[in-house]
């Protein structure tokens, strides 16, 4: 059987003080169900993932204890993509007709402060200040720019394009006033790991 996406739901990105990631996800699921025109009792299986929520499948306590298997998936930044692929496989394999894929998360402000051992890395890597995602991306893009002759102005134009797209999306987190090519906000913003900038909005 071919799997098709019949409904989607998205909670706006943001920290929303006082609202848990699980409550945000429950809202997103309800939006997806409404979009698909199906009720939660019709959903037969699902896959759900999160970094910060240790027991994301507990969302059934908010959506309804219908007895379906809701299985946890954890695959870093690709968690929701993995959940979606597995939900599609469940339909294609004939396990069910209606499946749900859910991703949720909520992070404190600032860089991730992770225990390296959780990522299979030695303690010294974190102790000496090497376990930082921003400088990983800074190093990665610097090499890419070196190999392909890309300038910071080009990066700024990509950022301007992305912010332009975000300004028309009421679910986007960073929706700055219009940012155009050459806007000094793109090249003068805070620099956690050059050339990675943070544009506060």
């Amino acid at each position, binding site marked *: 059987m071919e799997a098709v996406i019949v409904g989607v739901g998205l909670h706006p990105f943001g920290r929303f003080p006082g609202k848990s990631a699980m409550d945000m996800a429950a809202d997103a699921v309800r939006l997806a169900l409404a979009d698909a025109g199906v009720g939660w009792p019709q959903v037969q299986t699902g896959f759900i993932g999160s970094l910060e929520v240790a027991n994301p499948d507990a969302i059934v306590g908010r959506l309804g204890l219908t007895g379906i298997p809701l299985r946890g998936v954890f695959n870093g930044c690709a968690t929701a993509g993995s959940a979606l692929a597995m939900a599609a496989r469940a339909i294609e394999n004939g396990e069910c007709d209606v499946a749900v894929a859910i991703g949720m998360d909520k992070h404190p402000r600032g*860089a991730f*402060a992770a225990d390296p051992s959780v990522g299979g890395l*030695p303690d010294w890597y974190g102790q000496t200040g*090497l376990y*930082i995602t921003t400088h990983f991306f800074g*190093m990665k893009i610097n090499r890419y720019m070196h190999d392909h002759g890309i300038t910071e102005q080009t990066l700024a134009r990509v950022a301007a394009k992305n912010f332009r797209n975000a300004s028309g999306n009421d679910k986007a987190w960073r929706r700055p006033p219009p940012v155009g090519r050459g806007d000094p906000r793109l090249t003068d913003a805070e620099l*956690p790991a*050059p050339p990675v900038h943070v544009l506060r909005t």
Partner: protein
Amino acid sequence: MTGSGQVAVADRLFTWPAAEPRLIGGRCAACGQVGFPAGTGCERCGGTELTDTLLPERGTLWTFTTQNFRPPSPPYDGSDTAETFRPFAVGYVDLGGEVMVEARLTEPDPARLTIGQQMRLVIVPYATRADGTEVMTFAFAPAGDEEEE
């Protein structure tokens, strides 16, 4: 550089104290792949017979950036505070085409760093414990800096 009052941040990371410290990698007996730090399984073929091998003390800078804010603590345990933190450079250094190592760089000024330049291994303190003991880690310095020391 050696002597009392200094301790390595971890065992089996680099030879130290030593007149010419070297990083300790692991070479796979089955396929020859070298990994750093030395682990328990080869990252290329999965072989489990790995022997410690000393990595070249010089290499070329493959990429770099600046760590411009104090890393979240824990896990970072440098002795600086948000007020005293000084940005430091980090990079990947290609050691003889065999293995690439991520490390702190001693030169904090990005204008004095260039992809492809020669780097050499140094062992430097990055933290000082309450009793004055310096905690040592590995870093890379521009290879032309010897004269300045």
